[in-house]
């Protein structure tokens, strides 16, 4: 079987928002977006979601079933919201690894966590989700919150996450998805294509990054497609929960 992404001699392309870019450039372009927004990332998250992103993350932690002494990998952990909570739960005998491909986001996350006194059981690793630099069967829980849609080869990233999970370990993917109600979907489109870039322009002086955010959400696989991708990779008992009318979905799969 030939990989459809490499069907032609020219460099295969992938989507970056609604644009198509050579695969080798996507990571660089995503990095530029996050370098640009890193400093005001938390503020923008609160403004854009009206603070609801905290409830989405809260539900992710509930469903993770993390226990004292567990080893947790928080991929694309950004400013460390999930890592901070996991660090509290796993305690001194556990470990949380905050991994992000973007150095700026990792730095903001590390500074924020250290300022809040989170230390001792947290490690910071700059890593690519497609090629995780960890041994096989290493983590009890792997989470990726609002990160998978920025990954160039999502299948490779899911396979990599499966590899580093212990058998019985859980992967939780929190990501924007497809609203379940058509009317609500229209209102959401209007909000994300007009208001979001405007807010981005006002707060971070960068409308393009937030236009990319809205576009990348539309290009991301919907609930059933992502579920299928996780099953194809080898996860079992894959299920998903829609939140806020399907704007966000939390997928969970177990490594057999």
């Amino acid at each position, binding site marked *: 079987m030939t990989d459809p992404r490499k069907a032609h001699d020219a460099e295969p392309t992938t989507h970056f928002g609604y644009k198509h870019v050579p695969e080798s450039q996507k990571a660089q372009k995503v990095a530029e977006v996050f370098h640009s927004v890193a400093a005001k990332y938390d503020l923008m998250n609160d403004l854009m979601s009206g603070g*609801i992103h*905290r*409830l989405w993350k*809260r*539900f992710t*932690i*509930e*469903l*993770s*079933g*993390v*226990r*004292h*002494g567990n080893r947790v990998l928080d991929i694309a952990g950004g400013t460390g919201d999930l890592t901070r909570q996991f660090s*509290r*739960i*796993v*305690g001194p005998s556990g470990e949380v690894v905050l991994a992000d491909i973007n150095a700026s986001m990792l730095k903001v996350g590390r500074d924020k966590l250290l300022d809040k006194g989170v230390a001792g059981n947290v490690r910071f690793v700059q890593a690519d989700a497609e090629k995780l630099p960890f041994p096989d069967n290493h983590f009890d829980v792997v989470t990726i919150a609002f990160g998978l849609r920025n990954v160039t080869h999502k299948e490779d990233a899911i396979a990599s996450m499966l590899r580093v999970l212990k058998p019985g370990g*859980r992967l939780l993917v929190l990501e924007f998805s497809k609203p379940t109600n058509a009317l609500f979907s229209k209102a959401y489109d209007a909000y994300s294509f007009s208001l979001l870039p405007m807010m981005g322009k006002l707060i971070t002086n960068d409308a393009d990054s937030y236009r990319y955010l809205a576009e990348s959400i539309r290009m991301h696989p919907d609930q059933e497609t992502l579920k299928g991708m996780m099953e194809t990779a080898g996860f079992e008992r894959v299920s998903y929960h829609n*939140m*806020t009318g399907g704007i966000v979905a939390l997928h*969970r799969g177990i490594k057999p």
Partner: protein
Amino acid sequence: MLRAALLAGAERGINRVLRLDPTALPRLARLSGRIIEIDCTAPAWRLFLLADDEGLRLASSWGAEADCRLRAPATSLLRLALSRDKTAVLHGPDVEIDGDSGLLTSLAEILQDLELDWEYEISRWLGPVGAQLLGSSLRNPLHWLRESADSLRQDLADYLGEEARALVGQAEAQARFDELDDMKLALDRLEARIERLALNLNPDRPE
């Protein structure tokens, strides 16, 4: 999502109160990593509690098995929340505990030992002099109110039990209960004796 929002709000409020007691958080830290499930039977709802050195975490679900599970109707849970003597409520007949009951008892003890330092919280807003003035002007009336309420309760109990004879006094009731217990024991013995005699009179009858 609404439930998660309510729980998040409640969690913030509870943890703010817990921070007012200087001993509560270090004691809660000792329960860190343990999961308590509260399963309300009527109406049906569930709540998970996790303690650590920052306070309590409330969750409507938890993806892992709880270390201790408390099953009780809402009335008992409310009594548990409001009662000063929480351990007595935990031993009630409609309360069911599975798993490590010591965990629940420890949490109940921490909550019932709470001594909130309101004056410290007020001093953060009004400064030490303002807090002292407000504290002393509130402390005396509060003390008087508490003593008056205690005294009123005692007087009312005495009046209804001893003077008006409208209610049975506690000592009197206890004496009647003891008599009833003795009578029940005597009846049990008599029943056993009659059975033994009946068996002697008619040895062929199957037991």
